[in-house]
């Protein structure tokens, strides 16, 4: 351990503001990247499930089996 007390650790020899600002920002960005994917995935399945239910109920026309992307085809 490079510090003797918790206070030393927080103050960082007077550079605490800079060090903690850099670390907290980076951690926020990293966690944000992880959460963004998880939330988008959940949202996708929620919406897709709702669509499937409406299709089963016959309130919307079935799109059928589409390829989705124009880039499909033999390479």
């Amino acid at each position, binding site marked *: 351990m490079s510090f003797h007390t918790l206070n030393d650790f927080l103050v*960082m020899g007077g*550079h605490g503001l*800079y060090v903690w*600002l850099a670390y907290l920002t980076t951690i926020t*960005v990293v966690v*944000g990247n992880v959460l963004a*994917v998880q939330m988008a995935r959940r949202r996708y*399945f929620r919406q897709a499930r709702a669509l499937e239910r409406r299709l089963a109920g016959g309130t919307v026309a079935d799109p059928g089996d589409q390829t*989705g992307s124009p880039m499909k085809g033999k*390479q």
Partner: protein
Amino acid sequence: MSMSASLSVSQSLKAWWHKLGSPRWFYEISGPWQRLFGVLALVLLVTGTVWGLAFAPQDYQQGNSFRIMYVHVPTAIVSQSVYMLMGAAGLVLLVWRMKLADMVLSAAVPFGMSMTACALFTGAVWGKPTWGAWWVWDARTTSMLVLLFLYFGLYALRQAIPREETAGRACAVLALVGTVNIPIIKYSVNWWLTLHQPASFTLTGAPSMPPSMWVPLLINVLGIYCLFAANLIGRLKLTILERERNTQWVRALVREVSA
């Protein structure tokens, strides 16, 4: 190696290359990889960050502000690697027209962009106590800012062109052309007089710091690469689901998950 063995190796490589062209195949095999890289990233990043923040010794000149290195260097390195990967994906898309390459080109942008912004921000926060300024216009900082704008450009271009195929090719060209900036970032500190110091690590020389300082840095660099791998797979799977939302296999998957 015998002739037939090398032939079968090249054939299986070719088969693998063709399979890569199938988003469904990628979706189905990538789950375990995403989890593996995710767990590795968590373990490595927590270890490296705690080590760098609390256990690595302080620097004889900079004191504790040098600990910003443990977040600044990994984000800066990975932001450039992500861009190089997008350049490679651009090449594959333009020449081989592989769907997955286009998806990589779109799925890697948010991570790369946020890492570039993070590297610039932590650099500014490190610059204030060491240099005495938040920002200077030297060759390194300016070329890094150009990288951020290239990421903005890739994001905006994708939004601006409604036709998926055209947007993909436009992004591929921008990604490829932009790779010219990567060696400029890397060698800016050697080619010109800059305030930013040269690299502490080179392929040939010994690192210019003791192991007690560079080991946690290496752990964080490896960790951020694992995080990128996991994040890219996650975003690719999402892109695949969105682009193939009307195919039988995706609809079956949705029904399966909801059941």
